[in-house]
């Protein structure tokens, strides 16, 4: 967001909240007065996976072993840093599914994959402790702790990348995690469809946030087939996630979101040519 946009946005908000100052907040703010270019996509808080899984815990007991995509071997780094960053996000998200499935072997495998992928992009040191904790807690079947360590692994790896001035790669880790998380979520919701469940997929601000970030990255890094494919996928799923709210997301749309995200995850995991 550039300075001009921010100034315009701040002015709009100052006007909109002028009557509601001091202790009493304004009953409403004029979102429509936000300048068109101020989509706020750069100032979006991307939730940690635990936030989604916390809701899923309350919705019932899905058949997580069915959702889990078993990794027989360690994830092997392939492609450039962009692809490996995406893979890392996907693997961490798979860790959450493995925790839900209470599959200790799989979680341990994922902990080691996190280490291997991190090493390939130079952030192993930052996540080594987390990877060890993931394996250790999985051994003891302490699932709540594993989930917390996975959240922190995601945070640590993104942080380490930002310290290496690779904020765009950090975004790709988040994107990879979001794609696999959304695929898993869609799969769970589709298996036992409910409006409440489908509404969890109403995440247009995140789809838009990642699309804009990816466009910027694609522009900077030249043509990249994988990034172009993901960009196309995000444009496909964005309207399926509902515009005004998520109450109207249909079972068909849930399946379509899951299918598209699944294809993108496969592309991320595909061996680079």
């Amino acid at each position: 967001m550039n300075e001009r946009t921010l100034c315009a946005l701040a002015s709009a908000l100052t006007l909109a909240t002028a009557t509601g100052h001091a202790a009493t907040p304004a009953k409403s703010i004029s979102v429509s007065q936000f300048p068109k270019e101020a989509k706020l996509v750069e100032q979006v808080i991307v939730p940690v996976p635990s936030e989604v899984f916390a809701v899923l815990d309350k919705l019932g007991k899905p058949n997580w072993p069915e959702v889990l995509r078993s990794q027989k071997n360690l994830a092997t780094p392939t492609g450039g840093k962009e692809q490996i960053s995406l893979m890392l996000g996907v693997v961490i998200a798979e860790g959450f599914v493995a925790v839900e499935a209470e599959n200790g072997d799989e979680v341990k495998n994922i902990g080691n994959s996190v280490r291997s992928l991190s090493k390939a992009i130079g952030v192993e040191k930052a996540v080594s402790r987390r990877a060890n904790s993931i394996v250790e807690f999985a051994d003891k079947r302490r699932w709540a702790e594993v989930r917390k360590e996975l959240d922190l692994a995601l945070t640590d790896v993104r942080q380490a990348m930002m310290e290496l001035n690779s904020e765009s790669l950090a975004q790709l880790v988040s994107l990879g995690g979001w794609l696999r998380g959304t695929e898993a979520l869609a799969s769970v919701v589709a298996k036992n469809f409910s409006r409440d469940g489908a509404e969890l997929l109403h995440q247009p601000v995140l789809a838009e946030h990642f699309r804009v970030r990816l466009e910027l990255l694609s522009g900077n890094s030249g043509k990249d087939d994988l990034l172009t494919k993901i960009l196309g996928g995000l444009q496909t799923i964005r309207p399926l996630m509902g515009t005004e709210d998520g109450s109207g997301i249909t079972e068909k749309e849930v399946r379509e979101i899951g299918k598209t995200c699944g294809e993108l995850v496969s592309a991320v995991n595909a061996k680079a040519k």
Partner: protein
Amino acid sequence: MKRDFFVKRTFLAAFAVLTLLSGAGTARGTIDDALSFALEAAQPAVKEGFTVREEYWGGDLPAGQPKPIAHQLFKGNEYWFWMGTDCKGAKISVHVYDSAGKLAEDEFWQKGQKAAARIRPKRTGTYYLLVEVEKSPDERTVWSLAYGFR
């Protein structure tokens, strides 16, 4: 001092960024204290089972210029947002609005250098956190925001 930045960092990195931007010494106290106030505000909720996310957001703002931050919230969860500042005499606030711009929080409070808002979202979707320095003895006031969920 004129800075307009929005940082999303873990505690140590936030410290590093601020040190780079504003020189060592003053920045440390500033972000350290702003975070401390926000996390102090979080303590009662932590005792009630809220998980505090280990990333923090912050920057500095002039008085009377609210800043919107978009956030994806999920129906079924409950959230607390805590804001802090190191500036004595400043009055800060954080409020939560839904995607249509309607005030959506269930509760809020302001106490000294801390402010907070709680929401149990009625719908899953985009919400706007509006952080504001309502008044301050300084030209720009450093703030920090943390949140928790259960």
